[in-house]
């Protein structure tokens, strides 16, 4: 595909690797924030090609993984109601709540459907006026404008049988929380290209300056990632801490203003709990007062659900990048993609699932593979 295949060229990848080896004079620890980037890194085995000393930490940028257990349980409760059509991105269907997942609700007779676009859920609501259609509005800044537009379309069409269960998160507060943690090891960040396509990178500039940390807005293909890593390493070696844009073909400094306007119209910034990390102030989005009538939590009275995580799961440390999935006692034993205990094992972008899919069962297995 144009604009994808060119950025997977193995010959150019080797050149970047050679350049990276020449540029890296010291060991550096870099976090790719985004789960999509984690997916590419692990699936293509990019981290194993990096020069020794360049260490990638996989960040919390998987909306599926950071959706709190409580929210998943609310989704399960709503989806099990008679008369409800529960529409969700496919990713959320296997996320374990405290009692099963959405596919389990479907197996017991719930009407749970995977949709590709939030507008498909609005169309469902228009087509089934006698049913309540609930859309699971998860995602980072990339997805928030799309979910906002679904609410705007429903409002315009006067659909009173459409609502959204909102679980939106924002990247910059998460980066700040990681940098504020006393055990933080991250020295540079690859910012998520598609989040920045919406938001631009102005909000990252104060973070880079305040924490003296390089941030490189990076794309998702192998060459993008290698170039993003190279740019971060050059900054680290030079002692610079700037925001640079590797993904220039898709990201402009001020982002997508039309999308930002729709986000601001429909959502307000709110405090949010991240699964495995805990509450982070001003790190999420909630429906603005003018659109509160589309709030599924209110409509179905599920505001008071409280829950508890599995005791062995170290999802929090994995999402903050302080430990690897292979450090977890449950990883690959009790916790597998088939029976996930924690969210990072669910989405194929989740760090644990990405490790598992690439066969990283344990350090010994990995060594043999080399």
């Amino acid at each position, binding site marked *: *595909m144009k604009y*994808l295949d060119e950025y*997977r060229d*193995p010959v150019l*990848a*080797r050149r970047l690797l050679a350049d990276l080896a020449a540029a890296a004079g010291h060991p550096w620890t870099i976090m790719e924030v985004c*789960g*999509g980037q984690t997916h590419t890194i*692990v*699936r*293509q*085995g*990019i981290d*194993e*090609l990096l020069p020794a000393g360049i260490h990638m930490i996989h960040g919390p940028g*998987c*909306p*599926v993984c950071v959706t709190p257990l409580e929210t998943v349980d609310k989704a399960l409760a709503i989806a099990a109601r008679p008369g409800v059509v529960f529409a969700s*991105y*496919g*990713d959320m*269907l*296997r996320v374990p709540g405290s009692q099963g997942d959405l*596919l389990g609700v479907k197996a017991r007779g719930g009407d749970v*459907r*995977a*949709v*590709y*676009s939030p507008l*498909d859920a609005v169309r469902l609501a228009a087509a089934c006026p006698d049913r309540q259609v609930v859309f699971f509005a998860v*995602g*980072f800044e990339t*997805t928030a404008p799309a979910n906002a537009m679904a609410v705007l379309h429903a409002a315009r069409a006067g659909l009173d049988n459409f609502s959204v269960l909102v679980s939106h998160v924002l990247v910059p507060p998460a980066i700040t929380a990681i940098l504020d943690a006393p055990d933080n090891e991250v020295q540079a960040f690859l910012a998520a290209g598609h989040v920045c396509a919406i938001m631009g990178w102005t909000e990252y500039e104060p973070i880079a300056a305040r924490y003296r940390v390089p941030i490189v807005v990076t794309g998702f293909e*192998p060459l993008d990632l290698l170039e993003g890593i190279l740019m971060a390493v050059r900054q680290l070696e030079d002692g610079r801490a700037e925001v640079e844009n590797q993904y220039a073909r898709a990201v402009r400094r001020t982002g997508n203003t039309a999308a930002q306007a729709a986000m601001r119209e429909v959502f307000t910034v709110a405090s949010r709990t991240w699964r495995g990390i805990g509450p982070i102030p001003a790190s999420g989005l909630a429906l603005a007062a003018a659109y509160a009538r589309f709030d599924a939590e209110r409509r179905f009275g599920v505001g008071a659900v409280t829950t508890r995580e599995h005791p062995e799961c170290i999802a929090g440390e994995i999402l903050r990048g302080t430990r690897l999935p292979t450090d977890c006692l449950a990883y690959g034993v009790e916790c*597998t*993609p*088939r029976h996930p205990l924690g969210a990072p094992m669910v*989405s*194929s*972008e989740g760090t644990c699932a990405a490790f*598992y*899919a*690439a*066969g*990283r069962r344990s350090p010994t297995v990995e060594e*043999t*593979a*080399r």
Partner: protein
Amino acid sequence: MTNPLLAACPAPARSTDRLLLGHGSGGQLMAELLRDVIAPHLAAPIEDAAVVPFAGGEAVLSTDGFVVTPRFFPGGDIGSLAVYGTVNDLAMRGAEPVALCLAYLLEEGLDVAELHAVTASVAAAARTVGVPVVTGDTKVVGRGAADGIYLTTTGLGRRLPGADVSAVRGAPGDVVLLSGPIGSHGSAILSVREGLGFEADITSDSQPLHGLVAAMIAAGGPDVHALRDPTRGGLASALNELAAASGVGIDIEEAAVPVPPAVAAACELLGLDVLHVANEGCLVALVAAGAADRVLAAMRSRPEGARARVIGDVVAGPVGRVTARTLVGSRRIVDMLVGEQLPRIC
């Protein structure tokens, strides 16, 4: 068996456009169904079992159920799929097809025109393969107890002379051959599945592979060690199954696996790994290195195998491990698909 609906109605409507529960009751309605809908396409099965002439050798048997949604998809339908699927299962043990049995499980209320169409497709596929459908069975279940049409085909085959094909025969040093591009069937089905809203220039690769296998056996004989058609679970699952059954490891070159551009695009959009996407018209073979060139040439001489190529080799171990050299030259483990394939956004 008495049908309560018919018992309650002294003059049952002989609706020919919707299937009634009574069409499966063994009475007149059923006789009419067989006469008017099945028999015009397939020779009427008068007996409960068929006698099939069988000239020596080893018999190979296989059975498979078909439940595809939607029933008609670009490049095929449940009828042709039910014939080719079982013919291919026989072929994967080095057998040529001799006869097929066909069982219908039908839902009350089914549009009879659809049953006509599916049966016509079964008949056409059987003619393409040159295998008779010799006997069968028809059941009708209540509305909601099944989804339209389920088919089960059972195939009788004869092992080809010189063939010794089994999933356990892969050996270190074997070459891994793939008969053609992957991912078309699964992505054709997904592209027309409700809710996703895609329109794609993708047709299923559904086709019979017995001719291809006959050519491979003629060229390689017992050096063709193992065959598998990577249906559900895709190439990744097929290779994992072969590696586990043979007690070997398999290394493939990701860049060597041909993927049609539209299939690659569909996988990108839906976030699927093409190695997990179903196929219905290609096969993967483990062949002794010394015979690989001959077998590959034989494959390429046939249309089903025109784009056959070497995609990797069999290694001693780790046992059951499949690895791929990635596009950028690293290595990763190729795992089996877990559960249902779901489109993802992130």
